[in-house]
């Protein structure tokens, strides 16, 4: 069994807008970059049968998610001409209106950044062992399912 150290994609709670600004700012000295493609997941206050969503509580199989993320990253770097790629996913409770996913892909030209970002978001949704439980205003809860 290999023991690889991967960059931790998980953060506790919501991702603040200031974190996103700081990450963008950090790329100002990478002057080979011409395009950033960013995806943000925001928690919706959906009306469910049993009540209205007030938050999503995320849990993950963290070790497996990190390894999987590493493999996804390698495959996207092999496929597209990318400068860098950053993923941050919330764990724990994220309230409606808050950001739970921050995906940030940069490349010299726009096509690679846009395509890789789209593929990365799909991979995160369908390949990462992460689960969201919707907490309702009735104090009940529903497990989310991606589509």
């Amino acid at each position, binding site marked *: *069994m290999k023991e690889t150290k991967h960059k931790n994609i998980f953060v506790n709670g919501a991702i603040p807008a200031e974190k996103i600004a700081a990450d963008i700012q950090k790329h100002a000295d990478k002057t080979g970059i011409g395009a950033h493609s960013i995806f943000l*997941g925001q928690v919706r206050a959906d009306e469910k049968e049993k009540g209205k969503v007030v938050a999503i509580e*995320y*849990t*993950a*199989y963290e*070790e*497996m998610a990190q*390894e*999987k993320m590493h493999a996804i990253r390698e495959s996207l770097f092999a496929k597209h001409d990318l400068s860098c790629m950053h993923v941050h*996913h919330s764990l724990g409770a994220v309230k409606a209106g808050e950001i*739970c*996913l921050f995906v940030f892909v940069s490349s010299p030209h726009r096509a690679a950044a846009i395509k890789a970002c789209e593929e990365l*978001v799909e991979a*995160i*949704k*369908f*390949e*990462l*062992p*992460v*689960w*969201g*439980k919707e907490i309702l205003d009735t104090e009940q809860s529903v*497990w*989310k*399912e*991606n589509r």
Partner: protein
Amino acid sequence: MQIEVLFFGSLKDITGEASLLLADAKDTDTVQEQLQKRYPALAAAKYFTALNKEMITANKTLREGDTVALMPPFSGG
């Protein structure tokens, strides 16, 4: 031989615990049988199985220290 079993998402609601140790499971099919005996509601649940953090679709022989994870459909992001 000891195997660790992990439960995630809605499966943890069924088992009431995040993990347990199994002593006599020679392969992953045996793990499933033993778990369904202990938690009958598991039989109706939809889930994937990972062995040592790799998804598996067929029965696999187990070794001391292996970790089997039962995971409902993912819903991150």
